[in-house]
């Protein structure tokens, strides 16, 4: 299987603090990659580098045929224009689910779902709406089309967030701690939806603290620590870690859970 995602040599510093120091990995199409690590390890920064919400200082990101090489300088008017085109193409390959959903509060559920397809991709409204209704059914929210986000529970909001990311038909879905902001009793419904997506063969990159859930869905696990990939492997990393740092982290997280 060819790699759908290829990340090489990512570096990023905020102020004087190096958050990423040479992070690289690949993900095959149809697989789920789980990114784990203690807070401050840079896992969210890695995820946000994949759609350039953070601009890496060095390295490169490729999804399918779209690549941005941050080692090539983008100076001058022409350079900046070229970089903007590359970034736009890369972003079009992924959809993102945020920790606190970031739904558009002034638009209905359906409005949130068709915003990208209609306004950005230029698809006909009827087609986008039909598509959106299908997605809402898939995430268990059929019939809530006309509700505003504030009228939904946290779990429902996050499921709409997932549907909004899927509405763009992205090749990769990026999920940034999708259950961290939820009340414990609402976590299950969101994880259920993500589990279905994994079973469907979606390519996903997930930053999460839910280790038990990660065991179920992960095809690949990246354990980040101090801005580098400390351990990388299959789901067995979560049950039988080799690295002492990984062991330490897992035991701490599992004790709490």
């Amino acid at each position, binding site marked *: 299987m060819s790699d759908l995602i290829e990340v090489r040599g990512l570096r990023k510093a905020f102020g004087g603090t190096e958050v990423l120091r040479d992070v690289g990995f690949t993900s095959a199409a149809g697989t789920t990659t789980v990114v784990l690590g203690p807070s401050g390890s840079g896992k969210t920064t890695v995820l946000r580098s994949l*759609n350039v*919400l953070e601009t890496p200082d060095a390295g490169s990101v490729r999804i399918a045929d779209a690549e941005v090489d941050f080692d090539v300088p983008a100076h001058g008017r022409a350079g900046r224009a070229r970089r903007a085109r590359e970034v736009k193409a890369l*972003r079009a390959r992924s959809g993102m689910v945020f920790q606190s959903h970031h739904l558009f509060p002034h638009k209905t559920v359906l409005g949130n779902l068709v915003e990208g397809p209609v306004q950005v991709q230029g698809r006909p409204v009827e087609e986008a709406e039909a598509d959106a209704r299908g997605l809402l059914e898939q995430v268990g929210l059929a019939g809530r089309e006309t509700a*505003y986000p504030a009228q939904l529970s946290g779990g429902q909001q996050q499921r709409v967030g997932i549907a909004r990311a899927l509405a763009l038909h992205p090749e990769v879905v990026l999920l940034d701690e999708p259950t961290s902001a939820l009340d414990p009793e609402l976590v299950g419904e969101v994880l259920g939806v993500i589990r279905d997506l994994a079973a469907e063969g979606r390519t996903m990159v997930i930053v999460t603290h839910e280790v038990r859930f990660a065991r179920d869905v992960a095809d690949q696990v990246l354990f980040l620590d101090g801005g580098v990939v400390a351990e990388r492997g299959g789901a067995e990393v979560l049950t039988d870690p080799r690295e002492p740092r990984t062991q330490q982290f897992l035991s701490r997280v599992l004790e709490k859970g």
Partner: protein
Amino acid sequence: MVRRCTPVLLALGALLALLLGASPATADGTGGSGGDRPVLRVGTEGTYEPFSFEDADGDLTGYDVDVMRAVADEAGYDVEFVQGAFDSLFPALDADRIDVIANQITINPEREARYLFTQPYTYSRGVIVTRTDTDDITSLADVAGVRAAQSETSNWAQVARDAGADVQSVDGLPQALELLAQGRVDVVINDNIAVLSYLSTRDDAPVEIAGDVDDEVSEQALVLRQDEQEVRDRLDQAQQRLAADGTLAGISEDYFGADVSVENTGEGVDPEGTARTRWEVVRDTAGPMALGALRVTLPLTVISFAAGLALALLAALARMSSSRWLRWPARTYISIIRGTPLLVQLFIVYYGLPELGLRLPGFTAACVALSLNVGGYAAEVIRSSILSVPRGQFEAATTLGMGYRQTMRRIVLPQASRIAVPPLSNTLLSLIKDTSLASVVLVTELFREAQTVAQNTGEFLVLYTLAAAYYWIICLVVSAGQGRLEKRLARYST
């Protein structure tokens, strides 16, 4: 952040061009034959009974107005009257907003050095007016050290000042006499005709003519700019013909029962006057004031608010731009607007810009000044509203592939507008009331209507209270609209 704002700028430009082209109801088109005779723009107070005032129907009339109409007609001109406070007449003449002043302008050496006069059409003498209970002021010598109320640029102010009086500036003779009656000043100096005429309509006023200024007879004539020699000569000749055939004497008899257009004027003047009751004044004025509100105050508010908001949005976006070439001018603009009085801004636009060759009609000048003012204040409101939209909203839009303009238009501004409605409503309420300042640039809006009639009738309290009531009603409607809008915008919040 801001990349392209050309369409909005173009729209603003078009709006401005529209304003320059059409300026409603600041001038009274009068004039007989309606042919294509040249038009003389004539400045006059419209509050100076019996020389220049509005009758019960709101039509401009008076001795000076009728003389002007007759002379212009004889000389082959159409006239268009422009009403303004006395102190704005000479600046308006200087700025080429009017061609002639017909307002009992007294010939004196300073004015003769700067302007052209026609032959005098009024001969009068100065009198000293006091309260009836004042006995110790009977001549100019007694005026030293007492308080006088005078129009600042009128020659009577200089007479009073030279006599040692402490001069308070007022807007016209009626206001001066009102202050005198109220005991706020001790003396008013003006010409006998104007004073007698005023007293005839206000016989309850506790004021009286206490003495003559001196033996001198002053002469009043039409005033033109110095480069208008040819027009002056035509008017002069026409005036002489009308003096010869008795037309001027006839006009004078109508107003004063005496011929003041020749030199031996004065005694025995018995001015006509029809005093209206307070209720009649209010009844006659309520309509014109409502018209002033509908035809000028409301359009001025709507245009200035719309243009101001567009300007404010541009300034707010520029202020948040990453380019210092956008940020810096926006900051300066906002700082100047918020740091200077609106009245001064209005004066700069109306009286100042003509010196740079930009002569805007009163209504347009008021629109420009008010728009710029709203723009400066609303820019900060809009900026803080945009900043209060959570960062995640920008990010979510970005991950959907939206660019800066799309994100602003579809995601950020709709949310910011909800936050901005209450403070922007305050800006709008202020604007409605600030339009009353347009009265100082010769725009006949709601307040100016009230002012004109109040000056002529002395009914200050009821007419200004009526004006206040009109403003209040407009603001109540706007506040109700704000409530509905907030409700509508809040529909998604719970």
